[in-house]
């Protein structure tokens, strides 16, 4: 293909990627080094509140934003360097006595801990379960395959927040599954009263939700396994496990890498589970932290600065976690060219 033709094909998507991905990223990056403050003055105001039949008026000193002659708020934007990063990382306190509890007392590190554990634990489970379903379906009689595929795809079709909420309602308070467990184990169970049970439910939910995607990809991959190789393996005396280990898995390896890449990127941005399970008092994730910084408080203020810094830290985290897999893909790619 001529370079000009190639350019013609990818130019539209390059343009869209620049506008919707690259520019916002750069803008967030720049924003994380600046802070915009409103100028306040303390004034005495009288405010009246209705009571029950009476009105109470109080005069108090309140901070009120200063306005210019046009009635707009006076704001000041200044370069603060790494100040916002310091504010979220809080390095001195986090590493003051090198104890786990003082590290976990700071939101960013607490969120990072959960995000990493969540990502790394669900990765092998999702891939393993996906592969298991794919193998099972592949060995099923032709007649029932369609129905089985349809049923195993269902969790993937459900909107993430809805799926998380439905699992939450099964367990919260005396939800039916909690009630069942209590009856079965004859003990009082509160699934939402400690961090580890919530984390367990979140991971269970994520694996349940993404395994169908892995399954579909692996199932497609299984259709292309070379039957001659499999038959010769059988003749060589390889049992079922050995065929899986030495023929099928190497054949599926590029797909496993692909799914790992997607899964790492997706689950590092874990957010729906926090909302769905309302787990924020026990467990938070990096994305949740960004969201919390962006949420308006009662009086209409939010922290764009720390939200930007936190987003950049999340970006950096994803890049770091993807490096080993990207390295592997690059090596394979080069080996194929040579």
């Amino acid at each position, binding site marked *: 293909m001529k370079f000009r033709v190639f350019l013609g094909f990818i130019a539209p998507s390059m343009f869209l990627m620049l506008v919707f991905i690259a520019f916002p990223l750069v803008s967030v990056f720049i924003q994380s080094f600046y*802070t915009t*403050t*409103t*100028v*306040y003055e*303390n004034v005495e*105001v*009288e*405010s*009246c*509140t*209705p*009571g*029950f*039949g*009476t*009105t*109470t*008026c109080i005069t*108090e*000193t*309140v*901070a*009120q*934003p200063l*306005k210019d002659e046009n*009635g707009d*708020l006076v*704001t*000041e934007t200044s370069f603060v360097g790494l100040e916002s990063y310091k*504010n979220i990382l809080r390095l001195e306190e986090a590493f003051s006595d090198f104890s786990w509890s003082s590290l*976990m*007392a700071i939101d960013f590190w607490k969120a990072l801990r959960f995000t990493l554990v969540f990502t790394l634990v669900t990765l092998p489970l999702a891939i393993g379960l996906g592969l298991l379903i794919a193998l099972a379906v592949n060995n099923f009689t032709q007649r029932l395959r369609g129905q089985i595929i349809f049923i195993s795809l269902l969790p993937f079709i459900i909107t993430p927040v809805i799926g998380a909420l439905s699992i939450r309602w099964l367990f*919260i*308070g005396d939800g039916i599954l909690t009630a069942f467990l209590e009856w079965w184990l004859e003990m009082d169970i*509160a*699934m*939402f*009263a*400690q*961090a580890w049970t919530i984390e367990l439910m979140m991971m269970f939910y994520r694996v349940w939700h993404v395994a169908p995607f892995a399954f579909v990809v692996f199932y497609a991959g299984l259709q292309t396994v070379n039957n001659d190789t499999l038959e010769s393996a059988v003749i060589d005396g390889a049992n079922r496990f050995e065929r899986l280990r030495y023929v099928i898995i190497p054949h599926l390896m590029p797909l496993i890498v692909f799914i790992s890449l997607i899964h790492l990127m997706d689950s590092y941005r874990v957010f729906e589970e926090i909302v769905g399970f*309302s787990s*924020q*008092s*026990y467990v938070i994730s990096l994305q949740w932290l960004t969201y*919390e910084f962006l*949420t*308006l*408080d*009662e*009086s*209409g*203020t939010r*922290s764009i*600065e*720390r939200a930007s810094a936190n987003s950049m830290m999340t970006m950096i985290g994803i890049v770091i976690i993807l490096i080993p897999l990207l390295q592997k893909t690059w090596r394979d790619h080069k080996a194929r060219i040579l």
Partner: protein
Amino acid sequence: MRKFVAAAFAVLMLAPGSLWAACAYDNQTEIKSFSAGFQAWKSVTDAMAECGNFQAVLDQEFDQKHVEAFSANPSLYHIGGVANSSLVPLLNNDLIRPLDDLVAKYGSHLSDAQLIRKDGKIVAIAMMVNAKHLMYRQDIFEELGIAEPKNYDDVLAVAEALKQAGVVEYPMGATWKAGSNIGLSFIDYFLGEGGTFINDDNTPNINNEMGMAVLERMGKLKEYMDPEILVSDSTYVQQQFQQGKIAMANLWATRAGAMDNPDESTVVGKVAMASAAKGAVRPASTLWWDGIVIAANISDEEAEAAFQVAMEGMDTEMVQANNSDAIWLIEGYAPGRFSAGASATAANGALPYPASVPMGILFNVLGSGLPAFITGEKDAATTLADIETEYLVAAREEGLIQ
């Protein structure tokens, strides 16, 4: 089929005419309102809609969106439904207009308690008040010979007695869900002790003995509550009451009616409404009001039409039809069993929520910082110190302190 469609169409065409009957006049200007979504707002906006050409958006995430919506020029909505807290950003950004002229023209019937003034100018018209107050199971209390708790020592003693008796699953409920629920509960307790939250230089005033005392008490109360207390919001507490799982809780007056709803409740007529228990100084509760404001970024004609529609929605007729939805400030309201608790709380001297910009920030960091204490992750001193740090960072970013 075509006949059916025609008939349905005819009914639709006729319907507005019959609905308008409840409104004194026929509104010609397109009016939109934006407010929170609880039942009282539904009743009021339904009554406004009777005047025609009116569209209401009810949204429980109201205070996340109202500043943007009213900043547009022209404003996306004409009428806004605010509470004492959500009024602050609208006022600070000059997004609502003074109502003195309109009140003089169309609002002669409004009582003085309804007129919310800031610096002498009327900025909002209140329609209802709300407060958290004590609700308790009268039947259980009588059976066990327990008196109504007046202060928090009583509350702890009663909780212990209920625990010993073992008649309910948990002696107490509370709106301690992580976030604004638990943040406001702390504010209630701290006000009850007689505290003030913000110093004159906008620094916080909670990391002190009083703050420690409040947290210590919360730690004691926790022992008598559902272990899942950090997901417990107003609806959760209401349901626990209705299902007979708890025997007392501080809960919103607007939830009182649900206790006697025979479709949901197993404790109809058994829940007593009383004043919020006192801290050292006053009842541990805050008074809130809800009411309407009129956008600044609309034409004067639209503002006039909007105000007229709002007055129609907030009239005596509406109150009489929806008496139990809220504690209305509007003429025609008949106080009853469900408003007794809130009235007693106010009579005992509870203060209004002290809305301001620094208070908004403190409210927010309290809501996200307190759960760590309840879960036992941090002790009281660390919790307060961390909340103070979070406040200082946010206040510095906002420009409140240098």
